[in-house]
């Protein structure tokens, strides 16, 4: 199976992460043929998840499709790269029903367009008009500062570090004073 995959689909070897967990990086055009092959010929009947990693420096998204076969208890991770700009790929929903909602989620969070998926409405957000929030160019902190208000601090709030330093100094002085008093008392007793 591995040599076949290498010869027909991938440039690299299939990486064996551990027993029953394999990973291969394939070109985007070959991905769907490989998925069909794994499903039809090697019993990878379950699509567990589709994940996306944002490689903003290299300018692409890494999509990972994770498939499992229960027959041999093996898991296959298929990775492919797509361009970040106007990211789009084909939908898998005609092969796996569950892909529909996974793709909907990715569309919402990364703005990837899945051609052939008939319902890409928002899933957990509502009326979101800004950059898809999991893209890395979306600056969460800046967004929060621009859109939401924070409570001002209390008027009597104090710098805890300085305050604890001050308290410690006072305590130290007290201790030393007590020590001195004790010593002088001792000296008096001796006299």
């Amino acid at each position, binding site marked *: 199976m591995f040599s076949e995959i290498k010869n027909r689909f991938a440039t690299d070897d299939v990486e064996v992460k551990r027993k029953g967990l394999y990973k291969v990086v394939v070109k985007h055009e070959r991905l769907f043929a490989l998925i069909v092959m794994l499903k039809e010929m090697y019993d990878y009947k379950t699509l567990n998840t589709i994940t996306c990693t944002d490689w903003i420096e290299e300018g692409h998204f890494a999509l990972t499709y994770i498939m499992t076969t229960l027959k041999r208890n093996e898991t296959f991770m298929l990775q492919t790269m797509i361009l970040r700009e106007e990211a789009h790929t084909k939908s898998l929903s005609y092969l796996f029903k569950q892909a529909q909602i996974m793709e909907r989620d990715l569309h919402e969070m990364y703005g990837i367009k899945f051609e052939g998926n008939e319902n890409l409405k928002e899933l957990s957000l509502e009326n979101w008009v800004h950059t898809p929030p999991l893209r890395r160019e979306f600056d969460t902190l800046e967004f929060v500062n621009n859109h939401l208000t*924070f409570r001002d601090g209390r008027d009597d709030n104090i710098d805890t570090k300085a305050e604890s330093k001050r308290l410690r100094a006072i305590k130290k002085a007290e201790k030393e004073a007590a020590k001195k008093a004790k010593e002088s008392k001792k000296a008096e007793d001796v006299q």
Partner: protein
Amino acid sequence: METGFLQEQKVLEGDLNSENSHQNSVDFLMNWFRKQSIFVLAYGTGCGAIEMPPTFTSRYDAERLGIRGAATPRQADVIIVSGYCSYKTLRRIIRTYEQMSNPKYLLALGSCTVNGGMYWDSYNTIKKLEDYLPVDMYVNGCMPRPESILEGFIALQKEIGEGKASSWQKYEENYEFYRKNQEAVLGKKVEPSYEADWYLYEGGL
């Protein structure tokens, strides 16, 4: 101060020099009744909701203070916002709050409602609940234990008894302010849509 029957008697006889003289006897009685039977809407958002079942069941038994659950917003006096509110939840909370009948009170649990809590830099949760809805009582903590929730309730009861808890009036008077803030984060259409298409749609959930 006497309680129960004796107190009622005292109120009916009236004492204009007492500390509660700004309320007339009827007000005072009404508030006294109100504070003895608080119906809490069975609704929770955020992690703080997990502390509410023990508060209302036998372990902490809030019912001994006259605090008990209500099934629908129309029957409830108090709504508890028990933690962080995402925009999506805020829509529902606003709708629910507006459905409740007067007098209504809002109890906010957890540091998330006070100042965002540990979600202070999240793009999807509001930071200060009182900008969007009037809050009668904050209970801080992450998350507050049932003891503190009860303490918050007792403080709320005290305020109700004194006629000070009047956030619903504040909401009506300053509705424009609240609405402006709501629209700033939720867009022009604040009310949630009830089309239910997002899960009934073919290929939906």
